[in-house]
Structure formats: structure tokens, C-alpha cells
């Protein structure tokens, strides 16, 4: 009995610790731009410019993994940095982030915290944050929220939704894989068979089959977004089964890319540009350009609309871009085929049939 009590105490305390430790100390945004803020004060006295009260657009984002995961979270981080640079620095566009928010309760606390701090836009970058947002958003009717990846806005006037047509780039990657394989076997690794990952994997399989029905596509879901070791072993399994081109989605695939690199197996990436990890074997990446969505949302907010719409990034609207690895010697005919595929998906002459 005593033992059970002590175990219960431990568990209770554990849950307290886990929920307490995540309380969001809003991570500081990159400080590189700070120097520019001091500049206006040194203007000469002769003709003082009217104090240009620049309205800073302030964004807070909560992400499930790290900002440099070479995948889902990084795609959003890179987009925000890009907008900041384009708009001229932190005076015009400022953002803070909380990354590694894999505990949904912590993320919810962070979202509420940011909302009460008066940010213009709060991005919940992960479909697992949906129910938290549904609860929090009505309490802050003046604040705009964005949630991805999904199309569900819960009918709330201050929630935007966004998602990626990840099957489009998946399809292009499938075309590349089917054209490049010599063994006639390719493999793809996913985290959990749902949402963005399933869409990508299904698109990849469709792309392979459309290019060469004789190529075998082996599919593997490892049941985790973070188990790098199992992702690596999934890659080993694909290779043992004869694969010489592999693909995969979500942040744990870095383990698989490492295995591909060691075995000289080709890799097609998604979400972020993964070329830096293995410049010799990465062929191309589908890159998410969330800045397209964020800019549209900013325009809507400026016009007084705080939510209620959903967005899909596609190859057509420029929210998805295929980035080839310039260091990889892609045969010209394969490159042409891939470019034709992209064009076909954009103009609608190619339609993807998903299972």
C-alpha cells in the first residue's frame, strides 16, 4: 500500500513538474536587427521629421518541434524571417516563438499568454493545438489566430486555418524517384498515418505509379514524429528490401537521411530544404513557403478581417516550391519530366488520384 502511495505521489508530482516547467518564457526573437532601432535618434535637428509612428506587426508562433528541425517547424520559422527581412526589420515585423512545444498543454498556456500580451497574430503551428485554440480564441475577440495544418476554423471569426497540398510535391518527388531508381524499388517513411504526412506519402506513391507502374513503392510509418533511431532503422529496412531512392516526411527523418547518405541511396525531401544534411544524395525538396499564407493573413487583418478563412498552399499559388539540389547531377530528361509534372499540376492537366 505504502509503495502504491509513493508511486502515485511520484506520478502526481511528475505531472505537476511537466505542466509547470513548460510555462512559456517567450523565447526572444533574433536580436540581430536591434542596431537599426537606435538609428532614428541621430537625425539632425534642423528639420525634425514627424515622428513616424511605424505600426509594428507583432506575431507569436507556437511550434511542436525545433526551429531548425529541417522540416515542419523550420518551414514556418524561415517564412517569418523572410517576411521580416522583406518588410525591413523588427520595426515593421516582429515575431517571437516557442518551439519544442510537443506537450499540448504547454502550448495552450503559451498561446493564452501571447494572446494576453496583445500580439496581432498568434500562429498555432500544429494540428494538435486545435482544441486549445477553439477554447482560447473566443476569450480574445480582438486577436487573430492562425492554425495549421487543417481547414477547420471552428466557425470562429478570429481563427484562420492553413494547410499544405503536400501531395503535389510528393507526386513530383515520386516522379523523380521512379525515374532515378535502378533497382526498381523505392521506399518512403512517414511518422503517423494521418494528415499532412499521409497526404504526402499518398502523393509520392501516386507519382511513382504514374511514372512507372512496375516500380515497387514500400511504405513505412514508424508511429512517431521524434524517434530518430527508428526512422534510421526504417531506412535500413527499405535499403535491405532493395530501395535505392527514398523519401520521408516529418522531423525524425534526419535519421533516415543519415542512413541514406552512408549507403549512397538517393533522397527526395519535403517541408524544408534538406540538402545541407547530405549534399551528395539529396535530389530535390518540396519546400513549404508559409510566407504566402502569412502575408495574405496580414492583408486581411489590415482590412479588419481577423479570421474565418482557410488557405491551402500549392505549387500553383507559390506556397509550395520544388527546390533542386544544384550539387546533384540530375539527368536532363528527368529534370524536364519533373518540370513538366510541376507545370501539369499547376495548369490542371495532371490530376492526382489519391487512394
Amino acid at each position, binding site marked *: 500500500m505504502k509503495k502504491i502511495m*509513493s508511486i502515485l505521489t*511520484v506520478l502526481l508530482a*511528475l505531472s505537476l*513538474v511537466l505542466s509547470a516547467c513548460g510555462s512559456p518564457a517567450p523565447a526572444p526573437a533574433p536580436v540581430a536587427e536591434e542596431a537599426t532601432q537606435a538609428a532614428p535618434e541621430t537625425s539632425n535637428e534642423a528639420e525634425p521629421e514627424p515622428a513616424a509612428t511605424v505600426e509594428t506587426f507583432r506575431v507569436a508562433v507556437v511550434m511542436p518541434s525545433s526551429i531548425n528541425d529541417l522540416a515542419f517547424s523550420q518551414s514556418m520559422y524561415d517564412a517569418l524571417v523572410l517576411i521580416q527581412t522583406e518588410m525591413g526589420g523588427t520595426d515593421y515585423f516582429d515575431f517571437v516563438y516557442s518551439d519544442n512545444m510537443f506537450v499540448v498543454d504547454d502550448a495552450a498556456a503559451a498561446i493564452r499568454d501571447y494572446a494576453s500580451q496583445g500580439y496581432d497574430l498568434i500562429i498555432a503551428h500544429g494540428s494538435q493545438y486545435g482544441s486549445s485554440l477553439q477554447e482560447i480564441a473566443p476569450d480574445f475577440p480582438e486577436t487573430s489566430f492562425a492554425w495549421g495544418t487543417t481547414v477547420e476554423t471552428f466557425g470562429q471569426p478570429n481563427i484562420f486555418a492553413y494547410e499544405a497540398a503536400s501531395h503535389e510535391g510528393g507526386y513530383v518527388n515520386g516522379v523523380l524517384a521512379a525515374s532515378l531508381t535502378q533497382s526498381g524499388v523505392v521506399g518512403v517513411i512517414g511518422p503517423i498515418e494521418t494528415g499532412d504526412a499521409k497526404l504526402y506519402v499518398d502523393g509520392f506513391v501516386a507519382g511513382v505509379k504514374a511514372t512507372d507502374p512496375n516500380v515497387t513503392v514500400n511504405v513505412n510509418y*514508424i508511429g*512517431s514524429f521524434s524517434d*530518430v*533511431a527508428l526512422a534510421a532503422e526504417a531506412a535500413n*529496412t527499405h535499403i*535491405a528490401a532493395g530501395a535505392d531512392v527514398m523519401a520521408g516526411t516529418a522531423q525524425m527523418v534526419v535519421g533516415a537521411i543519415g542512413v541514406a547518405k552512408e549507403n549512397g541511396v538517393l533522397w527526395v525531401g519535403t517541408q524544408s530544404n534538406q540538402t545541407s544534411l547530405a549534399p551528395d544524395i539529396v535530389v530535390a525538396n518540396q519546400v513549404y513557403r508559409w510566407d504566402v499564407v502569412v502575408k495574405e493573413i496580414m492583408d486581411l487583418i489590415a482590412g479588419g478581417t481577423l479570421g474565418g478563412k482557410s488557405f491551402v498552399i500549392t505549387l500553383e499559388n507559390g506556397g509550395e516550391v520544388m527546390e533542386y539540389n544544384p550539387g546533384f547531377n540530375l539527368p536532363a530528361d528527368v529534370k524536364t519530366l519533373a518540370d513538366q509534372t510541376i507545370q501539369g499540376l499547376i495548369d490542371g492537366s495532371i490530376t492526382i488520384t489519391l487512394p
Partner: protein
Amino acid sequence: MITDLLSSTVLIGILASGIRLATPYLYAAIGETFGQKSGVLNLGVEGQMLLGSFAAFYVTFRTGNLWLGLLAAILVGALMGLAMAFVTVNLHAKQGISGIGFYLFGLGMSDLLFQKLMGTVETVRGFPRVSIPVVSGIPGIGDIFFNQNILVYGAYVLVPVAWFVLNKTTLGLKIRAVGENPDAADSLGVSVVRIRYFTIILGGMLSGIAGASLSIALLNVFQQNMTSGLGFIAVALVYFGGWRPFGVLVGALLFSFVNSLQLWIQVLGLPIPSDIAVMMPYVLTILVLVATASKIRSPSALTKPFEREG
């Protein structure tokens, strides 16, 4: 379809994968076995692994020397163990909670250091595969057992060594005595404090190596929270193995083989949904635990702080 599973490629693939997957579990769980045998439950294994994993990766990345990387992981693990020992042995802190504290410390610290020192995911050239002469040429068996990297071999050598130390040496006798009846051990002149310091620091070092086996031998990358629960499974494997090194080996292999089996089941396209397949190792572990739990007794003084009376 099912017969596909019995082809030699697949069987060799399953076994070779399983041998590799079990490696980090073995280091961490054998280290934990020493700690628990002396009466200390360390739930901070995961944190020790993460910091060890990062230390090994970072030092290897900077110096290009794998052995220095491994040494760094061992040192970091030892330091974490030292801190854990101080908190639980000297300060009599609740072991469960302090272990969780060390886990969170390792999780956060490895992340912080990664962000500050690396900033992006990189790769290193890890320990290469070493073929053991003669035996690696045996068809099948050679590929499975004798064509791995040195840290994989080390994990399997560790098991009989740990068994020998725990059961056949004076040191092992003292460790077991301290874990069963610290008062009696103390009255016979065995230093409970010293023994527990030894086992906790040893456990930390082995957890550090477990982390290194991921970052500079099996995966050759580092990413935040890369161990993703491996350390907790290692603690469970100690219970699974009944606090015996060979029991731990059986548990680690069973779990890993079933995991690699489910990877193959999916690759071969057997009609089992992926959600069910990925559950298999966990379900099996729970079933075995339920079936065996009542038969094995834990060290009597496990989780009890020792205070000398009088």
C-alpha cells in the same frame, strides 16, 4: 504474403536491425540495473542519454575524433551521475522526482547547447562497421552479428561482464547487499554511500555511452529530444529483465526484434494497419511484464534513502 517474412533477406534484415536497435537500450538498462541493484531508481536516464548524445556529437563534430567524442559522453554522464548521487544519497531526495528533474535538465540543456553551439542539424562520420574476421563471412549469421560498429559489439560484451561483476565478485555482493538490506551491509562495514555513488556514476557513464551510440555510431546526427523516450523504455526493461543482465538482454532484444519485424511487415505490405503494427512491441512488452511481474522480487531497498540509525 506471410511467407515473404520467412525469406532469408527478411530474416537477416529483422535480426540485424534488432541487434542495432537494442544497443542503446542495453547500455542504458545495464547501467540502470547497477543503480537499482544498489537500491537507487534513476529516472533521469533519458536526460543523461540526451546530454551524452549531444556531447559525443559536438566533440566529434569539432575535433573529428570519435574517441574524444565517446570520452566526452562518458564524462558528461559521470557528472550527471555524480549530481544525481549527491541529491539522492546525501540529500535523501525522493528518487523518482529527482530523476525526473535530471531528465528535464538533460532535455532542456541538450536543446539549449544544440541551439547555441550548432544551430542546425549536421552529420558526422560515425564509428564505421567493423567486420570480425572469419565469423563475419558465415552466411546470414555474419551479416547479423559480426558486421556492426564497435559500440554495438560493446553493448553485447557488457551483458556478461555486468552479470559477472554483479554475481561473482565481492563488489557485486556489496552492491546487492546495499540494495537488499543497507542497514545490515552498513553494520558489516560496507559503505552504503560509497557503493551507491559508484553505481549511480557508473549508470550515468553507461547512459552517456547509450546516447553516444546513437549520435556517433548508429545515426550520426543530433536532433533535439532525439532519444524520444528510449531512456524510459530502458528503465522499464530493467523491471522486465528482473534486475538480471541477461534478463535485460532478452527484454531489449525481444522489444527490438518485434520493432524491426513491424517495420518489415509494413514494407512487405502485409495487410496490417500501420497503427497496429507500431503498437506491437509495446503490447508485447506489457503482456510479458504482466505475465512475469509477480514472480520476480525487486531489490528490497529500492527507492529507499539510507539513513544510518543512532
